[in-house]
């Protein structure tokens, strides 16, 4: 595992995360993430062969019946959106294809 984290790495991951970054942020994050990953490297030294991963700390999630119950009123939900068409009940977004 290498501890370098380049500006190109930041750009690649930012694309995956759908995050526009400024040039300054790309440089800053490349430097800081290299430091954070170098610090995180210590977990590689811990022997974990055959150890089950823990994904959550509680009991197993409680199951419930799959029943239809009332949800939030559509008009109130749409009212919170940056752009919506209440008459058709749709969220509006810019065109999908560039």
């Amino acid at each position: 595992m290498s501890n370098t984290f380049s500006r190109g790495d930041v750009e690649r991951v930012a694309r995956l995360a759908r995050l526009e970054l400024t040039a300054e942020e790309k440089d800053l994050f490349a430097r800081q993430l290299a430091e954070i990953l170098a610090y995180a490297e210590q977990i590689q030294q811990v022997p974990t062969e055959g150890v089950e991963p823990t994904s959550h700390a509680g009991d197993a999630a409680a199951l419930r019946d799959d029943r239809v119950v009332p949800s939030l009123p559509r008009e109130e939900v749409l009212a919170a959106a940056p752009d919506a068409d209440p008459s058709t009940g749709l969220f509006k977004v810019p065109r999908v294809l560039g």
Partner: protein
Amino acid sequence: MDVPIDVQSIRDAVARREVSAVDVCRAALERIAALDPVLNAFRFVARERALARAAELDSRRDGQNLPLLGVPIALKDNMCTRGVPTTASSRILENYTPPYNATVVNRLEAAGAIIVGKTNCDEFAMGSSTENSAYGPTRNPWALDRTPGGSSGGSAAAVASGMVPLALGSDTGGSIRQPAALCGVVGFKPSYGRVSRYGLLAFASSLDQIGPFAASVKDVALVLSALAGHDPCDSTSSQVVVPDFSAALASDGDLHGLRIGVPRHLFREGVDAEVMQAFDAAVEVTRNRGAEIVEVTLEHSPEAIPVYYVIATAEASANLARYDGVRYGYRADDATTLGEMYDRTRGRGFGREVKRRIILGTYVLSAGYYDAYYRKAQQVRTLIRRDYDRAFTNADVIAMPTSPTAAFKLGERTEDPVQMYLSDVFTVGANLAGLPGISVPCGFTTTRIPIGLQFTGRTMEDATVLRVAHAYERATSWSKERPVVAPELSR
């Protein structure tokens, strides 16, 4: 009119009609108005809503038995309140007013509490100083040039300065306990699953837990009884029966028969000398109350911080994908395509620390790195849980300093993420293992900055943790000390 300051006395006085809920509410609102220009503990004060609710309680004839009747409470700004702005201190939710209540809001109001406002925090609860708020930092009531800790710094400062007797925070890696320690109040992170998180804006779902701040352990126990219990809207909330937390506090503060584990091997470096001194003195107090002090080992604790930052950022990168400018919150309005709208909305709506964590979390989950970072961290998490299981065969609770240092200065750690992350070195373990943990005041530095003592217990043994903390608190007077924020403003 003298308004009592502790929760039980307020409740009793309102129930006996010695004071009205409206008067109690007004006193809190006045104190907020006087102090908040200095402290910036509040994001939003719900003045009219709170007064209307207080008037309604005063007009009811059946309110005498409500456990939190007329008690003002502040909520961290990451808990949804219907009709009241909820921003998580982020620009991306600047204009968001939720159409629904978090379960804790409904439970508090059913118990007679009055929500007076929303408190400042690190953006999406990511931070240890409240400096990552998009709306300016909160100041520590004990020293205005210092941070209140974080991420629930606004809630801690609001209780410490006497604006409200109660507040809720959320704790993902220490975000209730660390600010409680830095502000000299009591802060409790319940066991994972003890309190419903429905309506809490999610940061890291396998770690997040809601809990209270108060001036005493007794007040924490009172509000916890109102909050705890299974909620069908949160499938991770536990079905384990909720005990009477107030009844669990031993009235005589006796600790005979109780074993307190101390992992001394973790204190060899990085812990401030004054913090260590206060901690050692606190352990002696519990010994004098009858507790047996035993040495315990938490072998993998040194790895807890990196494990935490891999897991928490991975989960955050998934949870924060929902903020895309489509259904709520901010949208960049200069994009011509959907993809551009996503990129710009998120790039401009999120602050630096949130973006840093989304990048880190996305990276550790990405192809080629998942096994080396994310899966590895989950395996070490298992080892950390096993360490606690082993320690709890020899001890009933574990005592540690809450934070390795007292409150640090504003700006001191903002340029160095790793240094900031180390603030949580003693608190993240409880989140990784799902354990209950409390911070209680245990002294001051020579410059009169508070120091906190942490007790951690077995999962779902929240009552034991409260009992020990209460016994310690009874034997000392640290919890009674209050800061004077500005002499001309004090009551």
